[in-house]
């Protein structure tokens, strides 16, 4: 892959391409395995940066620009704070859900009861019992399908621990799997939710 394409992947991810360039890039991307792989890999690196920030507590940038290394830190603190704010807004938007359907139920005998659709808070996750089930496994995911928390219970509700879900979670989905005495899944229910103020 040539340098121009690789640079364009970064520009595309940063949202700096014009509408026309963007449309052309997407057309090429959907027809080119190598370009698709490059987009995937660069996105993975951006994800990795974000995950690393979560580990370090998202420390604000204290990096002094190369060209201004001799300046006092306070001279760049304000612009950097603004930069972090500018970055945080699109990142939050990218992580935020845009569910096409507010509710999605499986064709199972398990009926998920809460949370389903629009809710004001996330607390208890509950469903109806299924005959033959000896336990249930619950998986909560964010809007992109990333697993956030998995829990097990023998009852028909569970409350995730306080630190299980990020406070920034404004929507996602969850599944409950009914498991029989042999450890096999015998039924599954699923739902999407959106936290609204």
């Amino acid at each position: 892959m040539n340098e121009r394409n690789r640079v364009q992947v970064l520009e595309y991810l940063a949202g700096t391409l014009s509408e026309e360039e963007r449309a052309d890039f997407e057309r090429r991307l959907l027809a080119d395995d190598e370009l698709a792989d490059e987009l995937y890999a660069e996105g993975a690196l951006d994800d990795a940066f974000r995950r690393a920030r979560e580990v370090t507590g998202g420390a604000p940038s204290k990096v002094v620009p190369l060209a201004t290394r001799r300046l006092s830190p306070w001279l760049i603190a304000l612009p950097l704070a603004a930069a972090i704010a500018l970055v945080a807004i699109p990142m939050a938007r990218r992580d935020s859900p845009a569910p096409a359907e507010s509710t999605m139920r499986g064709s199972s005998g398990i009926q998920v009861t809460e949370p389903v659709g629009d809710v004001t808070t996330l607390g208890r996750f509950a469903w109806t019992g299924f005959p033959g089930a000896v336990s249930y496994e619950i998986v909560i995911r964010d809007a992109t399908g990333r697993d956030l928390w998995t829990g097990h219970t023998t009852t028909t509700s569970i409350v995730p621990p306080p630190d299980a879900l990020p406070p920034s979670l404004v929507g996602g989905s969850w599944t409950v799997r009914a498991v029989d005495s042999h450890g096999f899944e015998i039924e599954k229910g699923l739902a999407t939710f959106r936290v609204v103020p």
Partner: protein
Amino acid sequence: MTSSREREAWLTELRQRFVAVARRRVPEDAVEDVAQDALRIVHERGGDRPDLPWCFQVLRNTIGNWYQRQKVRARDLSPEDAALPNAAPTPLEALEDREVERALRESIEKIGGGDTGCAHYLQRLMRGDAPARIAEDEGLDPAVLYRRIYRCRGKLRELLRERGVLA
């Protein structure tokens, strides 16, 4: 995208790209399942025309979830049974957050030993600074900065690959 036919064609193309990307990151017998799971999420939650970066993020998370499930299963098996083919490097998205942070930090430090400029840009990206802002701070034309950043990210990906991590 207006008609269901156009949407179907779009999903077909996307599926082909998902399969190609997944093939480099999960064993062959898992490729179709992973691609299908990701495509289902895109179809169900992506709206009429979801952003492609979001679609590929869905695929990354699906692949990450696949590796998580393998780890859970491996814990329940004997070491012999749990041994997975060790032919390919591990994708970045298969690592735990702390492993990711350590791999990035150590690799950037290594880059800093020979190229402080690159290490500087990568540290800023890692801290969440947008390229446009970095360009402004450095007084660079954004196009110039993107070329520099692309080379620095390439170095980082190369070092990660040396650690057995596919990025």
